Structures are given as C-alpha cells and as structure tokens.
C-alpha cells in the first residue's frame, strides 16, 4: 500500500486513497506529495554541476549533531535536572553575577581592541613591502600555536609589578581586569587579521583609483570606499575573537589572580564547581553563558547580514 500510495500521490491522484487514510493525515501526505513534485521540477530545472547534495548534506547534519548539538544540549539537559528555584539561586549568586560581568566585559574589550589593531596589521601586511614581512606575517599565527597556559605564565611574568613591562607602570596590570584583557587580546589577535587580510588583498584597485581621480583624498577613500568593504570581515573577526576570549581559561587563570568579585572569570567558576562535584551548578552557569553568547553572536550576524545586504544591493 505504501508504495502504491506514494505513486498515486506523485501523480496527484488521490481518489483511491480516501477510504484508507483519515483526512488530517491525508492532507499532510497530499502536501508532501506536492512538495515532492515541486522538488522534482526544481531538480530538472536546476541540475547541479557537482552531484552529491544528499550525501554531503546528510554528513554535515550528522557531524554537526555529534560534534556540536549533542554536547551543547547536554548542558541544558543537565541543568534541567535541578529545579528552577535552585537554578535561579545558583545563577544569581553575587559572585557568579560578578564573574559574568567580568567575562563579558573583558572579552568584548579584547575583541574590540583586536578589531582595531587587527585591521591595522592586516593593512600593513597587504599594502607595504618591507624586509621581514614574511616573518611578521608568521608571527600573527603564533598565539594559535602556543599552549595557552604558556602564554598565561609568560604574560604574568612580564606584566607582574616587578616584571619587565609591569615595572614601568604605576598601576597594577597583572592580577587586575587589565591583565585579563591583555591575555585575551593575545589569544584573539589572529582572527581579525586573518579575516581582513584576504579581503584587503582582493579589493579592486580600480575603485581606489577611481576615488582618487574624482578628487577624494586618501582619508576619504579609506573611509568611504575601503572601510565599507571590510565591515563584514571585521565583524566576523570580531565575533570569532570575542567567542574565543569568552571561553578562554588556560591563559587567564594565571594572569587574573582569581580574586572573587574582582578577577574571577565565569569559566573558572564553572571549573571550581566541577571540582566540587557540583555538576548541575557548573552546567547552570555554563547554560547562562551559552544563551548570552548566542544572543551576542546572533546580533553580530544580523548586523553582518544587514551590511552585506546593503552592499550587494540584493
């Protein structure tokens, strides 16, 4: 019957089935049948040059489910095992709230600094020729390669009150939020540079020349012509840098000093709770971070979509 019915539906002949299928079900199958015909029509019109959509899409979904969706949903599942009252108490605990504020503030600041200086570095690396350019280009990736704990210890040594760099400042850098920001800038540096670099390389030279021939000075050309082209790449770099900074643990715990209410970041709170076998508490804090992060990244994406839409004019 199943085989027969699909055959019928595909031909849009439903008369024979009225007896067997109850009406709500029938309407579902009917619309399914219509979708099928639309899909086959679309297939005919628009044959892809490279086949394998079904296979690759299936793999993509499976892969993302195993790697991303299931682990993330575990966070929420675990959280649900505690009552709402308990959940609310855990996440509104003053020490936890202070850590959220610190984590988001430092991550956003670091991402912002990286966005500004990342564009500058990308500019220098694409626009000028100078000896040692390759080496500097390679240096940019170094923060990715270095174990973050090593970075943390190094930065702490340098920026501590008696350290090489720290001694020149009248205020403390290590063991304050400023130190955390420096560590986060360090680990997030490559994102904006690597996002902006190829875009800068590919900007059509004619546009800049056209701008100059129309009487614009260099500043006007940069602000009106080049910068708008870079916005999507900067936003992506900013988002990546921010997300990375928010989850950073290894380098920050060394330089932060980890004083409750002052320099204790959310990932550390989660770690502490885990060490005390408070799994529900840990996942509750994590769930809140996840939701806020999602909202921020979502906003950035909307922004990006909006700028992209404006400029391709679609």
């Amino acid at each position: 019957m199943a085989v027969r019915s699909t055959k019928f539906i595909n031909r849009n002949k439903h008369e024979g089935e009225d007896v067997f299928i109850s009406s709500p079900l029938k309407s579902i199958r009917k619309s399914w049948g219509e979708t099928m015909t639309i899909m086959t029509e679309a297939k005919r019109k628009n044959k892809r040059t490279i086949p394998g959509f079904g296979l690759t899409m299936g793999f993509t979904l499976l892969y993302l489910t195993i790697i991303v969706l299931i682990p993330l949903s575990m966070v929420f599942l675990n959280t649900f095992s505690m009552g709402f009252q308990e959940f609310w108490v855990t996440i509104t605990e003053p020490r936890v709230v202070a850590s959220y504020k610190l984590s988001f503030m430092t991550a956003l600041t670091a991402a912002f600094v990286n966005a500004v200086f990342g564009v500058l570095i990308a500019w220098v690396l694409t626009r000028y020729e100078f000896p040692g350019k390759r080496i500097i280009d390679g240096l940019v990736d170094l923060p990715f390669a270095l174990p973050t704990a090593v970075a943390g210890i190094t930065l702490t040594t340098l920026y501590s009150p008696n350290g090489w760099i720290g001694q020149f400042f009248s205020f403390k850098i290590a063991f304050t939020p400023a130190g955390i920001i420096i560590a986060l800038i360090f680990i997030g540096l490559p994102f904006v540079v690597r996002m902006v670099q190829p875009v800068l390389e590919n900007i059509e030279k004619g546009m800049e020349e056209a701008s100059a021939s129309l009487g614009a000075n260099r500043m006007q050309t940069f602000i009106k012509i080049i910068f708008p082209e870079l916005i999507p790449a900067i936003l992506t770099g900013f988002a990546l840098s921010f997300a990375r900074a928010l989850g950073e643990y290894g380098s920050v715990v060394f330089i932060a000093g980890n004083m409750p209410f002052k320099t204790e970041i959310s990932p550390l709170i989660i770690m502490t709770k885990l060490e005390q076998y408070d799994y529900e508490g840990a996942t509750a804090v994590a769930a809140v971070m996840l939701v806020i992060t999602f909202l921020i990244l979502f906003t950035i994406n909307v922004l990006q979509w909006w700028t992209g839409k404006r400029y391709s004019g679609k």
Partner: protein
Amino acid sequence: MSIIVENITKYYGSYQALTNINLEIKSGELIALLGPSGSGKTSLLRIIAGLEQAENGNILFNEENYTHKHVKDRNVGFVFQHYALFRNMSIFDNIAYGLKVRPRKIRPSKKEIEQKVTELLQLVKLEGYKDRYPSQLSGGQRQRVALARALAVEPNILLLDEPFGALDAKVRKELRRWLRRLHDEFNVTSVFVTHDQEEAMDVADRVVIMNEGKIEQVGTPEEVYDHPINPFVYDFLGSVNLFKGNVQQGKLVTGNVEMNAPDSEDGVSTGYVRAHNFIIERKASGKDSIASIIDHIHTMGAIVRIEVIRHDTNEPLEIELNKEQYMELELRKGERVFVRPKELKVFVDYMAGI
C-alpha cells in the same frame, strides 16, 4: 584643454614599457590610443591621468606642467575597463561621489548635487535606476554610470581605458556611437585606449598607433588606413596579405608573378595588399595575375571572405568580396581562378640583409 606628452619614458623593473613618447593633443579632440596588448597604450593613459609616474619626461595640460601633480588635483575623468563602480553605494551616490568629497568651501549644496546627478542620469538614460546598486545593472549600464560619474566633476580631460572591452559586440557599437555624440556635445578633450581598430577608426578624430612602447603613426583614421607609414601599421589595421619577394627595376617579383611597384627601391621587399583590394578572374589578364585554387568560402553577412591557395608558392591568400561581386562570379570551392591585386604597397625589408 590641450595635452602635451613630452619625452615620456616608463620602466616596470627592467622592462621598458614606454620609450620617449611625444604626443600633442589639441583641445576638444577625441583621440584613440590603438595597439596590441603590451604596446604601452594603457601605461601612457595612466601616466596622463597621474595614476602612474613616468621615470622621465613631462605631462603638460594647457601648457602648464602637471607632471608632479597628484591624480586628485588633475581634474581628469577616468573610466576603467571593469567600471570600478563603488559597489557599496547606490547609482545616485556613485555619480554624486566626486561632488560630495570636495572640500566644504567648493562643495555644491545638497540640492545642486541632486540636480546635477539627475541631469547626468538623464544623459546616460538611467533615470529610473538611481536607487539601485551596481550589482543590479548590466555591463553596458554600469559603464554608462561610470561615465556619468566621471563627467560629474566636469573634468578638463576625459580618459577611458578600454571602456567597452568587457561588453558584447552590439552594446559596444551602441556605446561608442553614443560616446562620440557625448563628446561632440561636451567638447571635452578625450583620450581612449582600445585594441579594436574598428572602434578606433569609427570614433576617433585622430588615431595614435602604438607598438612595443613606441608610437608608430599618428593621424586621422583615413590617413593611417590609406597611408600607413610602415609594415606594422599596415598589418595592424585590417587584414592584409604579404608577398615576400625582390624588387627589380620597379617590379616586385614573387613566385611566378611580377607586380608593378614603380616607386620602390631595388632589393628584398615585402608587398602588402589588403584583403578587399583584389580582383578575382577566370582568365589571366597580365603578369600580376596569380594562379590560385579556392580553398574556403566564408559568408559573413554583407562580406564574403575567400581563402585561396597560390599555385606557385602554396601560400594562402585572404580575399574579401562584397556579396554582389561574389554572386556575379559564382565561385565554387576547389575552382581554379586568377587573383589580381588592385593596390599594392611595398616596404623594403631592412632586416633581410642583416
């Protein structure tokens, strides 16, 4: 505004792109820089615009030295082959750009800008498109916007770098006629680069033919076509047939054929005959009749191109007849015919003796 190009020399690394270029362009002229790729025509245009600097020589606008002026201070309109429109701006903003970036003191008011842009949009027949973005326009429309954008700043000189190179044949033809009308209306001194000889001949007041970083000949389209001063120009303008041979006492001897070449020096020479300067006959009518066999007949609209093979040297010749001549002759592929050149130009091969 007149342009004088004085002894311009340009290197790219060790490659010499331009050698001692001298050129005078009168105010209000429309000039075509014509040459094969790599001939330096685009480099010359970019040096006139100030987008590139020459190693040597001067550029004078109205007899004033502009050599060291920045492109933004030259007040030239530049049109690029690939349009170079600002893709993050609407068509309106693209055209208004040159006016909007002016220093406050000389910037027109918002209303004046709007009026000017509307005028230009009418001129390029894109009134309804002002709120669109470049990506929503066809190639021909984009190039019209680029032209309007360049004209908005009321340039002293309009420079166009292969402006129609990326467009299809029909749009190209329309646009170049339109450019000519536009030029006659605005009377702005214009220079455009092209590798299409038909385009140059069709539009320009004078044609500058360039090759390997040098100017080969400057003249009106008729002058350069009818009186090419050297083999390169002859070869470059239109399809031409070569007869390698020897000049003896006013006759070019090539294969079994003798052609009259009264004004030529004796020696190893090459005769040039344009494809449309032949007569095809069934019988030999003199010593310059070349016995040949018809190899191919291509009908291309109003012109019929016939390829024949010379009987004596087995060399191919290309002949163009108009449709009427072709119909009258009733030629068939494989037929034996005699081909006679109507007009012959002989250049001595200076290289042959070396």
